[in-house]
């Protein structure tokens, strides 16, 4: 019983830590994925915007969904939401609390991706280089509109023959990178301030409801874990009984059909017990055959 209690306490205290750990790993994985990813802007007029914005927004959606999939609490919440009422009332505050905590954790990896993308700058340069005003940059001011578009589209590609050593290309690139990094740092600052305020101001509003919601959401989580553990324990005992019963029924059948009643000898009582009266190759084979062809009913 002590061991059970230790295991359950471990699960209880660690449930939040496990979720936080998974969150952290996902955020690190998102940074790693970005650095491994070989960003290659197509440098073509319409493709640039699609590619740049696609790389900025599609992976965060995938990371968000991953965050929801990997979070066990999501299933618990959905279960609680969809269960028939039965004899236990449903508390919407608990469901809302669980939902908000799941969403907050799942949002971390996408936000990390977007911030890293903006701070790096390549995406924004790729997406918005064609939208720059050519008049602002010396190298592009005196060209026709179509040509200017083509040249601007090639700004993200340093090694292209048209833009190699082009100082205006570098100017556009620096300008866009500056905007991108400013945006990145601003988003980071805003999010940290919001998180700070939320955490500090929360006790001022409705602390009692929050404590209740947190308690009951932990309870629902623990209850489900314990139910699964009990089911496992139960199925193990069920299987144990079933197999013992099977061996005993085989032993009885053998007793019925043999002329040899096993004598109570002074031999190894313990071993005889374990043998369950099955002491012959054919008896064993018959037992194994029976087990395969006719499993005992449940």
């Amino acid at each position, binding site marked *: 019983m002590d*061991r059970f209690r230790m295991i359950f306490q471990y699960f209880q205290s660690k449930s939040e830590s496990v979720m936080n750990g998974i969150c952290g790993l996902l955020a690190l994985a998102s940074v790693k994925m970005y650095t491994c990813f*070989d960003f*290659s802007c*197509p*440098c*073509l007029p319409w493709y640039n915007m*699609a*590619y740049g914005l*696609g*790389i900025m927004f599609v992976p965060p*959606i*995938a990371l968000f*969904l*991953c965050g*929801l999939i990997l979070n066990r609490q999501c*299933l618990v919440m959905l*279960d609680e*939401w*969809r*269960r028939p009422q039965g004899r236990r009332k449903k508390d919407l505050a608990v469901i809302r609390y669980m939902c908000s905590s799941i969403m907050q954790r799942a949002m971390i990896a996408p936000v990390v991706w977007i911030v890293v993308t903006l701070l790096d700058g390549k995406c924004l340069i790729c997406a918005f280089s064609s939208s720059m005003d050519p008049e602002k940059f010396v190298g592009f001011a005196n060209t026709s509109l179509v040509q200017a578009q083509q040249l601007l589209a090639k700004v993200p590609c340093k090694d*292209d*023959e048209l833009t190699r050593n082009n100082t205006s290309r570098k100017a556009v690139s620096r300008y866009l990178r500056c905007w991108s990094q400013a945006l990145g740092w601003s988003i980071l600052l805003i999010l940290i301030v919001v998180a700070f305020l939320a955490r500090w101001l929360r006790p001022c509003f409705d602390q009692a409801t929050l404590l209740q919601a947190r308690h009951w959401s932990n309870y629902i989580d623990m209850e489900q874990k314990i139910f699964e*553990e009990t*089911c*496992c*324990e139960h*199925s193990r005992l069920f*299987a*144990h009984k*079933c*197999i013992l019963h099977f*061996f005993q029924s085989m032993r009885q*059948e*053998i007793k019925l*059909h*043999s*002329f*040899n009643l*096993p004598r109570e*000898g*002074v*031999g*190894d009582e313990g*071993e005889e017990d*374990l*043998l*369950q009266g*099955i*002491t*012959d190759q*054919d008896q*064993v084979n*018959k037992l194994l055959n029976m087990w*395969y*062809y*006719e*499993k*005992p*009913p*449940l």
Partner: protein
Amino acid sequence: MDKFRMIFQFLQSNQESFMNGICGIMALASAQMYSAFDFNCPCLPHYNLAYGLGILLVPPLILFLLGFVLNNNISMLAEEWRRPQGQRGKDPAVLRYMFCSMAQRAMIAPVVWVSVTLLDGKCITCAFCTSVPVGALGNASHPGLSQREMKQVLARIPCKEIYNGQELIANEVAIRYLNCISQALGWCFVLLMTTLAFLVRSLRPCFTQAAFLKSRYWCHYIDIERKLFDETCAEHARSFAKVCIQQFFEGMSTDLAAARCHPPRKAPADVGEAAKKLLGITDRGTMNTALKSWHRCKPPLHLHPPILPSGNGWAGEGQPPTQPPAPRREMAAYYSRV
């Protein structure tokens, strides 16, 4: 028994984590395999497509099958599917649950391979370089090239060292274009897969939770029953072997004593346990005979009940009257089933 229980509980509660760990390892292995693989586009018109699509699609199939092979539960599924009905009904929902959970886990490594391949871009570049829109990206009016010759030139796009169509279409432009298409496909594929996984996981509690709980319970039950049965059989085999060997040694010792026409020496009372374990064999010759006999003529798989102390030492006493008395011949005991 307590230890067994704890180990079982640990395995059971962690079986999901264990299987998830294996999935993660296979996914990492698949990414590592791709990076270790030396991709060599043939740069010939029809071979490119075959090679590129082959590298994109054949390893995932192999990884999927490997995922099934490495999963211990596949034999459990096969056994449950093929067993005769007997006294226990079969539940197709349980079989479906087992198959679905195995298939989901086996899908992870192939999906990782396809995503990494598409995001890297080399496969698509190799496979579709002959389909690049030359009109939009390059100089379509470049004279002197028939359709076939143009395809041959375009097929060399992935091989920068031998590419000779710079006037037709710049190599970097074509590669950037193809990479962009490949990466877009890759991210869309990743998004599609995560959306599917999310829907499968989250729609289940909304619809079939009760049936799911039942299937999961019985699936675990079948697994535990199989393991417990194997354990019980192993214990039985151990006891069987122990008694069989003991009876063999006793038989040998009694035979040798009878052959030498003197009663087996009684061990002095104070030697105790060790003397008992010697089973009456106390010199080299006897031991050698015992070992030879064990090698040449193993005893039959039939344990006779223990010999009563009032007997005169014949090994044949106590055997069922329907059997021939010699203990060394193989005996077939058949009990008819009614």
